Protein backbone atom coordinates (compact mmCIF):
# COMPACT_ATOMS: atom_id res chain seq x y z
CA UNK A 1 0.00 0.00 0.00
CA UNK A 2 2.78 2.40 1.06
CA UNK A 3 4.80 1.46 -2.05
CA UNK A 4 1.72 2.01 -4.28
CA UNK A 5 1.11 5.48 -2.77
CA UNK A 6 4.81 6.36 -3.10
CA UNK A 7 4.81 5.28 -6.75
CA UNK A 8 1.53 7.16 -7.47
CA UNK A 9 3.02 10.34 -5.95
CA UNK A 10 6.26 9.94 -7.89
CA UNK A 11 4.45 9.29 -11.19
CA UNK A 12 2.05 12.15 -10.42
CA UNK A 13 4.99 14.51 -9.90
CA UNK A 14 6.64 13.31 -13.15
CA UNK A 15 3.40 13.85 -15.06
CA UNK A 16 3.03 17.26 -13.37
CA UNK A 17 6.46 18.30 -14.69
CA UNK A 18 6.06 16.62 -18.07
CA UNK A 19 2.74 18.29 -18.95
CA UNK A 20 3.81 21.69 -17.63
CA UNK A 21 1.54 23.62 -20.07
CA UNK A 22 -1.69 21.95 -19.05
CA UNK A 23 -0.50 21.89 -15.42
CA UNK A 24 -0.15 25.68 -15.40
CA UNK A 25 -3.61 26.06 -17.03
CA UNK A 26 -5.14 23.76 -14.39
CA UNK A 27 -3.46 25.61 -11.50
CA UNK A 28 -4.60 28.95 -12.98
CA UNK A 29 -8.25 27.84 -13.24
CA UNK A 30 -8.12 26.26 -9.78
CA UNK A 31 -6.66 29.49 -8.36
CA UNK A 32 -9.52 31.52 -9.88
CA UNK A 33 -12.04 29.08 -8.40
CA UNK A 34 -10.39 29.30 -4.98
CA UNK A 35 -10.30 33.11 -5.21
CA UNK A 36 -14.07 33.08 -5.80
CA UNK A 37 -14.59 30.79 -2.81
CA UNK A 38 -12.29 32.93 -0.67
CA UNK A 39 -14.09 36.13 -1.60
CA UNK A 40 -17.43 34.48 -0.79
CA UNK A 41 -16.00 33.42 2.58
CA UNK A 42 -14.53 36.87 3.37
CA UNK A 43 -17.47 38.82 1.91
CA UNK A 44 -19.87 36.98 4.21
CA UNK A 45 -17.93 38.25 7.22
CA UNK A 46 -17.62 41.72 5.76
CA UNK A 47 -21.35 41.93 4.99
CA UNK A 48 -22.17 40.58 8.48
CA UNK A 49 -19.96 43.32 9.90
CA UNK A 50 -21.65 46.01 7.80
CA UNK A 51 -25.14 44.76 8.57
CA UNK A 52 -24.36 44.72 12.29
CA UNK A 53 -23.03 48.29 11.99
CA UNK A 54 -26.30 49.40 10.38
CA UNK A 55 -28.30 47.45 12.91
CA UNK A 56 -26.43 49.15 15.73
CA UNK A 57 -27.89 52.46 14.57
CA UNK A 58 -31.48 51.17 14.79
CA UNK A 59 -33.35 51.30 18.11
CA UNK A 60 -36.68 52.14 19.72
CA UNK A 61 -36.71 55.26 21.89
CA UNK A 62 -39.05 55.87 24.80
CA UNK A 63 -39.33 59.58 25.73
CA UNK A 64 -40.36 60.32 29.28
CA UNK A 65 -42.64 63.11 30.52
CA UNK A 66 -40.93 66.09 32.17
CA UNK A 67 -43.02 65.38 35.26
CA UNK A 68 -41.83 61.77 35.54
CA UNK A 69 -39.67 61.22 38.64
CA UNK A 70 -36.62 58.96 38.89
CA UNK A 71 -38.48 56.33 40.91
CA UNK A 72 -41.23 55.81 38.31
CA UNK A 73 -38.63 55.85 35.49
CA UNK A 74 -36.62 53.15 37.31
CA UNK A 75 -39.77 51.07 37.78
CA UNK A 76 -40.54 51.43 34.07
CA UNK A 77 -36.96 50.39 33.19
CA UNK A 78 -37.31 47.28 35.36
CA UNK A 79 -40.47 46.32 33.46
CA UNK A 80 -38.76 46.94 30.14
CA UNK A 81 -35.85 44.65 31.06
CA UNK A 82 -38.32 41.79 31.49
CA UNK A 83 -39.00 41.78 27.71
CA UNK A 84 -37.00 38.83 26.44
CA UNK A 85 -36.23 40.15 22.89
CA UNK A 86 -34.29 43.11 24.31
CA UNK A 87 -30.53 43.06 23.84
CA UNK A 88 -29.68 46.22 25.78
CA UNK A 89 -31.18 49.48 27.07
CA UNK A 90 -29.51 52.81 27.48
CA UNK A 91 -31.05 55.54 29.64
CA UNK A 92 -30.04 59.13 28.88
CA UNK A 93 -31.22 61.85 31.29
CA UNK A 94 -32.58 65.11 29.84
CA UNK A 95 -29.52 66.95 31.19
CA UNK A 96 -27.27 64.56 29.29
CA UNK A 97 -29.40 64.95 26.13
CA UNK A 98 -28.98 68.74 26.36
CA UNK A 99 -25.23 68.43 26.94
CA UNK A 100 -24.88 66.03 23.98
CA UNK A 101 -26.90 68.40 21.77
CA UNK A 102 -24.75 71.39 22.74
CA UNK A 103 -21.57 69.45 22.15
CA UNK A 104 -22.74 68.19 18.76
CA UNK A 105 -23.97 71.56 17.48
CA UNK A 106 -21.56 73.96 19.16
CA UNK A 107 -20.31 75.10 15.76
CA UNK A 108 -23.84 75.93 14.55
CA UNK A 109 -24.76 79.45 15.80
CA UNK A 110 -28.33 79.28 14.41
CA UNK A 111 -29.22 76.15 16.37
CA UNK A 112 -27.49 77.41 19.50
CA UNK A 113 -29.36 80.75 19.38
CA UNK A 114 -32.66 78.86 18.80
CA UNK A 115 -31.92 76.84 21.93
CA UNK A 116 -31.33 80.06 23.89
CA UNK A 117 -34.64 81.49 22.57
CA UNK A 118 -36.53 78.44 23.86
CA UNK A 119 -34.86 78.83 27.26
CA UNK A 120 -34.29 76.10 29.85
CA UNK A 121 -34.06 72.44 28.77
CA UNK A 122 -36.59 71.54 26.05
CA UNK A 123 -35.45 67.89 25.89
CA UNK A 124 -36.95 64.85 27.58
CA UNK A 125 -35.14 61.97 29.23
CA UNK A 126 -34.97 59.03 26.84
CA UNK A 127 -34.60 55.25 27.01
CA UNK A 128 -32.98 53.72 23.93
CA UNK A 129 -33.86 50.06 23.43
CA UNK A 130 -32.02 47.65 21.15
CA UNK A 131 -33.43 44.32 20.04
CA UNK A 132 -31.55 41.04 19.59
CA UNK A 133 -32.79 40.81 15.98
CA UNK A 134 -34.00 43.42 13.51
CA UNK A 135 -37.46 41.88 13.12
CA UNK A 136 -38.17 41.93 16.87
CA UNK A 137 -38.87 45.68 17.15
CA UNK A 138 -42.60 45.27 16.38
CA UNK A 139 -43.07 42.77 19.19
CA UNK A 140 -40.96 44.94 21.57
CA UNK A 141 -43.21 47.89 20.77
CA UNK A 142 -46.30 45.75 21.54
CA UNK A 143 -44.79 44.64 24.85
CA UNK A 144 -43.91 48.26 25.73
CA UNK A 145 -47.51 49.33 25.12
CA UNK A 146 -48.73 46.74 27.63
CA UNK A 147 -46.62 48.29 30.45
CA UNK A 148 -48.73 50.81 32.46
CA UNK A 149 -47.00 54.10 31.60
CA UNK A 150 -49.52 56.98 31.35
CA UNK A 151 -47.78 58.96 34.12
CA UNK A 152 -44.25 58.31 32.82
CA UNK A 153 -44.03 57.96 29.02
CA UNK A 154 -44.51 60.86 26.65
CA UNK A 155 -44.15 58.86 23.44
CA UNK A 156 -42.64 55.72 22.00
CA UNK A 157 -40.67 56.57 18.89
CA UNK A 158 -41.29 53.46 16.86
CA UNK A 159 -43.90 54.51 14.34
CA UNK A 160 -41.68 57.33 13.05
CA UNK A 161 -38.79 54.83 12.59
CA UNK A 162 -40.91 51.90 11.54
CA UNK A 163 -40.50 52.42 7.77
CA UNK A 164 -36.71 52.77 8.15
CA UNK A 165 -36.49 49.66 10.34
CA UNK A 166 -38.65 47.61 7.98
CA UNK A 167 -36.66 48.78 4.99
CA UNK A 168 -33.37 47.83 6.61
CA UNK A 169 -34.79 44.40 7.56
CA UNK A 170 -35.97 43.82 3.99
CA UNK A 171 -32.73 45.10 2.46
CA UNK A 172 -30.66 42.89 4.75
CA UNK A 173 -32.69 39.82 3.82
CA UNK A 174 -32.61 40.65 0.09
CA UNK A 175 -28.85 41.32 0.14
CA UNK A 176 -28.29 38.06 1.95
CA UNK A 177 -30.44 36.09 -0.54
CA UNK A 178 -28.83 37.71 -3.60
CA UNK A 179 -25.38 37.13 -2.11
CA UNK A 180 -26.06 33.45 -1.47
CA UNK A 181 -27.56 32.87 -4.96
CA UNK A 182 -24.71 34.72 -6.66
CA UNK A 183 -22.10 32.84 -4.63
CA UNK A 184 -23.66 29.46 -5.41
CA UNK A 185 -23.86 30.31 -9.15
CA UNK A 186 -20.25 31.55 -9.26
CA UNK A 187 -18.99 28.57 -7.30
CA UNK A 188 -20.84 26.18 -9.61
CA UNK A 189 -19.47 27.82 -12.76
CA UNK A 190 -15.93 27.83 -11.42
CA UNK A 191 -16.18 24.15 -10.41
CA UNK A 192 -17.41 23.27 -13.92
CA UNK A 193 -14.58 25.23 -15.56
CA UNK A 194 -12.03 23.52 -13.30
CA UNK A 195 -13.47 20.11 -14.06
CA UNK A 196 -13.39 20.80 -17.82
CA UNK A 197 -9.75 21.94 -17.65
CA UNK A 198 -8.66 18.83 -15.74
CA UNK A 199 -10.74 16.64 -18.07
CA UNK A 200 -9.02 18.20 -21.07
CA UNK A 201 -5.60 17.61 -19.51
CA UNK A 202 -6.46 13.95 -18.87
CA UNK A 203 -7.98 13.61 -22.35
CA UNK A 204 -4.52 14.45 -23.73
CA UNK A 205 -3.18 11.50 -21.75
CA UNK A 206 -5.82 9.02 -22.95
CA UNK A 207 -3.31 7.10 -25.08
CA UNK A 208 -0.99 6.69 -22.07
CA UNK A 209 -3.92 5.48 -19.97
CA UNK A 210 -4.78 2.93 -22.67
CA UNK A 211 -1.18 1.66 -22.82
CA UNK A 212 -1.02 1.36 -19.03
CA UNK A 213 -4.22 -0.70 -19.04
CA UNK A 214 -2.93 -2.94 -21.86
CA UNK A 215 0.28 -3.80 -20.01
CA UNK A 216 -1.78 -4.91 -17.02
CA UNK A 217 -2.17 -1.86 -14.79
CA UNK A 218 -5.25 -1.89 -12.57
CA UNK A 219 -7.66 1.04 -12.64
CA UNK A 220 -6.42 2.31 -9.28
CA UNK A 221 -2.79 2.04 -10.37
CA UNK A 222 -3.48 4.18 -13.44
CA UNK A 223 -5.76 6.55 -11.56
CA UNK A 224 -3.30 6.99 -8.67
CA UNK A 225 -0.87 9.21 -10.55
CA UNK A 226 -3.66 11.40 -11.95
CA UNK A 227 -5.21 11.78 -8.52
CA UNK A 228 -1.80 12.71 -7.10
CA UNK A 229 -1.30 15.23 -9.90
CA UNK A 230 -4.78 16.70 -9.32
CA UNK A 231 -4.12 16.97 -5.59
CA UNK A 232 -0.76 18.63 -6.24
CA UNK A 233 -2.35 21.19 -8.59
CA UNK A 234 -5.06 21.87 -5.98
CA UNK A 235 -2.51 22.32 -3.20
CA UNK A 236 -0.36 24.72 -5.24
CA UNK A 237 -3.45 26.67 -6.32
CA UNK A 238 -4.45 26.99 -2.64
CA UNK A 239 -1.00 28.33 -1.71
CA UNK A 240 -1.05 30.84 -4.61
CA UNK A 241 -4.62 31.91 -3.77
CA UNK A 242 -3.78 32.41 -0.09
CA UNK A 243 -0.80 34.58 -1.04
CA UNK A 244 -2.93 36.66 -3.44
CA UNK A 245 -5.67 37.18 -0.81
CA UNK A 246 -3.05 38.14 1.80
CA UNK A 247 -1.42 40.64 -0.53
CA UNK A 248 -4.71 42.15 -1.74
CA UNK A 249 -6.18 42.50 1.75
CA UNK A 250 -2.94 44.10 2.98
CA UNK A 251 -2.86 46.55 0.05
CA UNK A 252 -6.58 47.41 0.02
CA UNK A 253 -7.22 47.43 3.77
CA UNK A 254 -6.35 51.16 4.40
CA UNK A 255 -8.50 52.29 1.44
CA UNK A 256 -11.50 50.21 2.51
CA UNK A 257 -11.15 51.38 6.11
CA UNK A 258 -11.23 54.96 4.85
CA UNK A 259 -14.70 54.38 3.34
CA UNK A 260 -16.10 51.99 5.97
CA UNK A 261 -14.88 53.04 9.37
CA UNK A 262 -13.89 50.12 11.58
CA UNK A 263 -13.73 47.63 8.69
CA UNK A 264 -10.18 46.27 8.54
CA UNK A 265 -10.01 43.59 5.84
CA UNK A 266 -6.41 42.60 6.63
CA UNK A 267 -7.32 42.10 10.29
CA UNK A 268 -10.23 39.93 9.15
CA UNK A 269 -7.83 37.91 6.99
CA UNK A 270 -5.34 37.46 9.84
CA UNK A 271 -8.11 36.32 12.19
CA UNK A 272 -9.46 33.84 9.65
CA UNK A 273 -6.17 32.69 8.07
CA UNK A 274 -6.29 29.17 9.53
CA UNK A 275 -9.88 28.44 8.54
CA UNK A 276 -9.35 30.13 5.16
CA UNK A 277 -6.21 28.04 4.46
CA UNK A 278 -8.07 24.90 5.50
CA UNK A 279 -11.03 25.73 3.24
CA UNK A 280 -8.78 26.58 0.28
CA UNK A 281 -6.62 23.46 0.60
CA UNK A 282 -9.69 21.24 1.09
CA UNK A 283 -11.52 22.72 -1.90
CA UNK A 284 -8.39 22.83 -4.10
CA UNK A 285 -7.18 19.32 -3.33
CA UNK A 286 -10.74 17.93 -3.26
CA UNK A 287 -11.66 19.51 -6.59
CA UNK A 288 -8.41 18.28 -8.16
CA UNK A 289 -8.93 14.72 -6.92
CA UNK A 290 -12.66 14.49 -7.74
CA UNK A 291 -12.22 16.00 -11.22
CA UNK A 292 -9.31 13.65 -11.98
CA UNK A 293 -11.31 10.68 -10.68
CA UNK A 294 -14.31 11.45 -12.91
CA UNK A 295 -12.20 12.40 -15.94
CA UNK A 296 -10.09 9.21 -15.89
CA UNK A 297 -13.14 6.93 -15.51
CA UNK A 298 -14.10 7.24 -19.17
CA UNK A 299 -10.64 6.27 -20.45
CA UNK A 300 -10.25 3.26 -18.16
CA UNK A 301 -12.95 1.25 -19.88
CA UNK A 302 -10.48 -0.83 -21.84
Amino acid at each position, binding site marked *: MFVAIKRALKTGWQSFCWNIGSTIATIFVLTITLLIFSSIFLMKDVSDFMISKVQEKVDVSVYFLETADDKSISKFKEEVLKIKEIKEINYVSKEQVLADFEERHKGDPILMSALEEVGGNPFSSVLNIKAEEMDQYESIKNSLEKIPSEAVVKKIDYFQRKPVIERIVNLTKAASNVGISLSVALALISVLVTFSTIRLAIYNNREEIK*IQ*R*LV*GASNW*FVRGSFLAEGALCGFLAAVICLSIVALLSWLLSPKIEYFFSGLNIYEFFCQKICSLALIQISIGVGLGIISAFIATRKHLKI
Partner: protein
Amino acid sequence: MITFESVTKVYSSKKCKEPMKALDNVSFEIKPKEFVSIVGRSGSGKTTLLKIILAEEKPTEGAVFFEGCNIHKLKMKGLPFYRRKIGAIFQDYKLLCSKTVYENIAFVMQVTGAGDVEIKKDVPKVLEIVGLAEKSNNYPAELSGGEKQRVAIARALIHRPEVILADEPTGNLDPYNVLEIINLLVKIQEMGTTVILASHNKDVVNSIGKRVITLEKGKIIRDEENGRFIL
Protein backbone atom coordinates in the same frame (compact mmCIF):
# COMPACT_ATOMS: atom_id res chain seq x y z
CA MET B 1 -3.81 -22.86 -23.55
CA ILE B 2 -5.54 -20.38 -25.90
CA THR B 3 -8.64 -21.52 -27.74
CA PHE B 4 -10.58 -19.60 -30.40
CA GLU B 5 -14.10 -20.92 -30.86
CA SER B 6 -15.85 -19.68 -34.04
CA VAL B 7 -14.66 -16.13 -33.51
CA THR B 8 -16.04 -13.43 -35.79
CA LYS B 9 -15.16 -9.78 -35.44
CA VAL B 10 -17.10 -7.16 -37.35
CA TYR B 11 -16.19 -3.47 -37.30
CA SER B 12 -19.03 -1.12 -38.11
CA SER B 13 -19.05 2.65 -38.07
CA LYS B 14 -21.49 5.40 -38.97
CA LYS B 15 -19.22 6.67 -41.74
CA CYS B 16 -18.80 3.26 -43.36
CA LYS B 17 -22.08 1.92 -44.75
CA GLU B 18 -20.98 -1.70 -44.99
CA PRO B 19 -19.64 -3.41 -41.84
CA MET B 20 -16.09 -4.70 -42.18
CA LYS B 21 -15.48 -8.32 -41.21
CA ALA B 22 -11.97 -8.53 -39.74
CA LEU B 23 -12.26 -12.15 -38.56
CA ASP B 24 -14.70 -14.68 -39.97
CA ASN B 25 -15.56 -17.79 -37.96
CA VAL B 26 -11.99 -18.43 -36.79
CA SER B 27 -11.29 -21.51 -34.66
CA PHE B 28 -7.91 -22.86 -33.52
CA GLU B 29 -6.00 -23.83 -30.42
CA ILE B 30 -2.56 -22.88 -29.20
CA LYS B 31 -0.84 -25.25 -26.83
CA PRO B 32 1.44 -24.17 -23.97
CA LYS B 33 5.09 -23.46 -24.92
CA GLU B 34 4.18 -23.37 -28.60
CA PHE B 35 5.62 -20.94 -31.17
CA VAL B 36 2.92 -19.87 -33.62
CA SER B 37 3.37 -17.49 -36.52
CA ILE B 38 0.25 -15.77 -37.83
CA VAL B 39 0.81 -14.66 -41.42
CA GLY B 40 -1.27 -12.93 -44.03
CA ARG B 41 -1.52 -9.82 -46.14
CA SER B 42 -2.15 -6.39 -44.61
CA GLY B 43 -5.78 -6.26 -43.47
CA SER B 44 -6.11 -10.04 -43.26
CA GLY B 45 -6.97 -9.84 -39.52
CA LYS B 46 -3.63 -10.59 -37.82
CA THR B 47 -3.64 -7.55 -35.55
CA THR B 48 -7.36 -7.98 -34.72
CA LEU B 49 -6.64 -11.56 -33.67
CA LEU B 50 -3.87 -10.41 -31.31
CA LYS B 51 -6.06 -7.58 -29.98
CA ILE B 52 -8.76 -10.14 -29.16
CA ILE B 53 -6.24 -12.28 -27.26
CA LEU B 54 -5.18 -9.20 -25.27
CA ALA B 55 -8.87 -8.41 -24.61
CA GLU B 56 -8.39 -5.03 -26.27
CA GLU B 57 -11.23 -5.96 -28.62
CA LYS B 58 -14.26 -8.17 -28.03
CA PRO B 59 -15.37 -10.73 -30.61
CA THR B 60 -18.72 -10.01 -32.26
CA GLU B 61 -19.48 -13.72 -32.17
CA GLY B 62 -17.75 -16.75 -30.62
CA ALA B 63 -15.49 -17.00 -27.60
CA VAL B 64 -11.80 -17.02 -26.69
CA PHE B 65 -10.56 -19.10 -23.79
CA PHE B 66 -7.28 -18.74 -21.89
CA GLU B 67 -6.53 -21.76 -19.71
CA GLY B 68 -10.24 -22.60 -19.85
CA CYS B 69 -11.47 -19.15 -18.88
CA ASN B 70 -13.52 -17.02 -21.29
CA ILE B 71 -11.39 -13.89 -21.33
CA HIS B 72 -14.13 -11.61 -22.60
CA LYS B 73 -16.32 -12.45 -19.65
CA LEU B 74 -13.65 -11.30 -17.20
CA LYS B 75 -14.69 -8.34 -15.06
CA MET B 76 -12.74 -5.06 -15.15
CA LYS B 77 -11.04 -5.98 -11.89
CA GLY B 78 -9.84 -9.33 -13.21
CA LEU B 79 -8.64 -8.07 -16.59
CA PRO B 80 -5.28 -6.60 -15.39
CA PHE B 81 -4.36 -9.92 -13.75
CA TYR B 82 -5.03 -11.71 -17.06
CA ARG B 83 -3.03 -9.13 -19.04
CA ARG B 84 -0.06 -9.52 -16.69
CA LYS B 85 0.26 -13.10 -17.99
CA ILE B 86 0.86 -11.68 -21.46
CA GLY B 87 3.77 -9.67 -22.77
CA ALA B 88 2.68 -7.65 -25.78
CA ILE B 89 4.93 -6.17 -28.46
CA PHE B 90 2.81 -3.71 -30.41
CA GLN B 91 3.21 -2.77 -34.05
CA ASP B 92 3.19 0.93 -33.07
CA TYR B 93 5.36 0.25 -29.95
CA LYS B 94 2.87 1.88 -27.52
CA LEU B 95 5.62 3.28 -25.31
CA LEU B 96 4.80 5.79 -22.55
CA CYS B 97 6.23 9.00 -24.00
CA SER B 98 6.52 10.77 -20.62
CA LYS B 99 8.76 8.01 -19.24
CA THR B 100 12.35 7.14 -20.02
CA VAL B 101 13.37 3.78 -21.50
CA TYR B 102 14.19 2.52 -17.98
CA GLU B 103 10.88 3.78 -16.56
CA ASN B 104 8.88 2.27 -19.42
CA ILE B 105 10.24 -1.16 -18.61
CA ALA B 106 10.14 -0.68 -14.84
CA PHE B 107 6.48 0.38 -15.14
CA VAL B 108 5.38 -3.17 -16.05
CA MET B 109 7.22 -4.52 -13.01
CA GLN B 110 5.63 -1.86 -10.79
CA VAL B 111 2.23 -2.88 -12.15
CA THR B 112 2.86 -6.48 -11.13
CA GLY B 113 3.85 -5.32 -7.64
CA ALA B 114 7.61 -5.96 -7.90
CA GLY B 115 9.81 -4.28 -5.31
CA ASP B 116 12.32 -1.52 -6.07
CA VAL B 117 15.30 -3.82 -5.46
CA GLU B 118 13.99 -6.40 -7.93
CA ILE B 119 13.29 -3.68 -10.50
CA LYS B 120 16.81 -2.24 -10.13
CA LYS B 121 18.25 -5.71 -10.64
CA ASP B 122 16.11 -6.89 -13.60
CA VAL B 123 15.66 -3.79 -15.80
CA PRO B 124 19.38 -3.25 -16.58
CA LYS B 125 19.68 -6.98 -17.42
CA VAL B 126 16.87 -6.89 -19.97
CA LEU B 127 18.20 -3.61 -21.38
CA GLU B 128 21.53 -5.36 -21.84
CA ILE B 129 19.81 -8.24 -23.68
CA VAL B 130 18.13 -5.89 -26.19
CA GLY B 131 21.28 -3.74 -26.46
CA LEU B 132 19.89 -0.56 -25.01
CA ALA B 133 21.84 -0.27 -21.77
CA GLU B 134 23.28 3.07 -22.83
CA LYS B 135 19.88 4.52 -23.72
CA SER B 136 18.16 3.80 -20.42
CA ASN B 137 17.72 7.49 -19.59
CA ASN B 138 16.46 8.54 -23.02
CA TYR B 139 12.82 9.27 -23.77
CA PRO B 140 11.06 7.34 -26.60
CA ALA B 141 11.03 10.50 -28.74
CA GLU B 142 14.85 10.43 -28.70
CA LEU B 143 15.06 6.86 -30.10
CA SER B 144 15.03 5.47 -33.63
CA GLY B 145 12.24 3.14 -34.79
CA GLY B 146 14.39 0.08 -34.24
CA GLU B 147 15.38 1.20 -30.76
CA LYS B 148 11.73 1.82 -29.83
CA GLN B 149 10.92 -1.66 -31.06
CA ARG B 150 13.63 -3.11 -28.83
CA VAL B 151 12.28 -1.20 -25.83
CA ALA B 152 8.84 -2.67 -26.59
CA ILE B 153 10.40 -6.14 -26.69
CA ALA B 154 12.23 -5.56 -23.41
CA ARG B 155 8.99 -4.37 -21.81
CA ALA B 156 7.19 -7.51 -22.99
CA LEU B 157 9.88 -9.79 -21.55
CA ILE B 158 10.62 -8.14 -18.22
CA HIS B 159 7.87 -9.75 -16.11
CA ARG B 160 8.41 -13.26 -17.55
CA PRO B 161 4.90 -13.67 -18.99
CA GLU B 162 3.29 -16.98 -19.94
CA VAL B 163 2.55 -15.74 -23.45
CA ILE B 164 4.28 -13.25 -25.71
CA LEU B 165 2.22 -11.56 -28.40
CA ALA B 166 4.44 -9.99 -31.03
CA ASP B 167 2.76 -7.88 -33.69
CA GLU B 168 5.32 -7.23 -36.44
CA PRO B 169 8.21 -7.00 -33.94
CA THR B 170 10.82 -6.83 -36.69
CA GLY B 171 9.04 -4.29 -38.87
CA ASN B 172 11.44 -1.46 -38.06
CA LEU B 173 14.64 -3.39 -37.55
CA ASP B 174 17.63 -3.78 -39.86
CA PRO B 175 18.39 -7.37 -41.08
CA TYR B 176 21.08 -7.93 -38.45
CA ASN B 177 18.74 -6.94 -35.60
CA VAL B 178 15.84 -8.92 -37.15
CA LEU B 179 17.80 -12.12 -36.84
CA GLU B 180 18.86 -11.29 -33.33
CA ILE B 181 15.30 -10.53 -32.14
CA ILE B 182 13.83 -13.63 -33.80
CA ASN B 183 16.53 -15.79 -32.21
CA LEU B 184 15.67 -14.19 -28.90
CA LEU B 185 11.95 -14.99 -29.32
CA VAL B 186 12.76 -18.59 -30.27
CA LYS B 187 15.03 -18.90 -27.24
CA ILE B 188 12.30 -17.53 -24.98
CA GLN B 189 9.85 -20.08 -26.42
CA GLU B 190 12.33 -22.90 -25.88
CA MET B 191 12.61 -21.82 -22.26
CA GLY B 192 8.86 -22.43 -21.85
CA THR B 193 6.99 -19.33 -22.96
CA THR B 194 4.25 -19.45 -25.59
CA VAL B 195 5.04 -17.05 -28.44
CA ILE B 196 2.49 -15.80 -30.96
CA LEU B 197 4.11 -13.83 -33.76
CA ALA B 198 2.17 -11.89 -36.35
CA SER B 199 4.28 -11.05 -39.37
CA HIS B 200 4.28 -10.58 -43.10
CA ASN B 201 8.03 -11.01 -43.35
CA LYS B 202 8.46 -14.18 -45.39
CA ASP B 203 12.13 -14.73 -44.51
CA VAL B 204 11.49 -14.36 -40.81
CA VAL B 205 8.60 -16.85 -40.75
CA ASN B 206 10.41 -19.38 -42.93
CA SER B 207 13.58 -19.17 -40.83
CA ILE B 208 11.67 -20.07 -37.68
CA GLY B 209 10.27 -23.31 -39.13
CA LYS B 210 7.46 -23.73 -36.58
CA ARG B 211 3.65 -23.70 -36.71
CA VAL B 212 2.20 -21.18 -39.20
CA ILE B 213 -1.43 -20.05 -39.36
CA THR B 214 -2.28 -18.22 -42.58
CA LEU B 215 -5.13 -15.72 -42.63
CA GLU B 216 -6.87 -14.32 -45.67
CA LYS B 217 -9.79 -11.91 -45.51
CA GLY B 218 -10.37 -12.84 -41.87
CA LYS B 219 -10.45 -16.61 -42.47
CA ILE B 220 -7.87 -19.28 -41.67
CA ILE B 221 -6.82 -20.75 -45.01
CA ARG B 222 -3.90 -22.81 -43.71
CA ASP B 223 -2.69 -24.10 -40.33
CA GLU B 224 0.48 -26.21 -40.53
CA GLU B 225 3.07 -27.52 -38.11
CA ASN B 226 6.56 -26.66 -39.42
CA GLY B 227 4.77 -24.45 -41.91
CA ARG B 228 6.04 -21.91 -44.40
CA PHE B 229 4.97 -18.49 -45.53
CA ILE B 230 2.71 -19.15 -48.52
CA LEU B 231 0.13 -16.62 -49.75
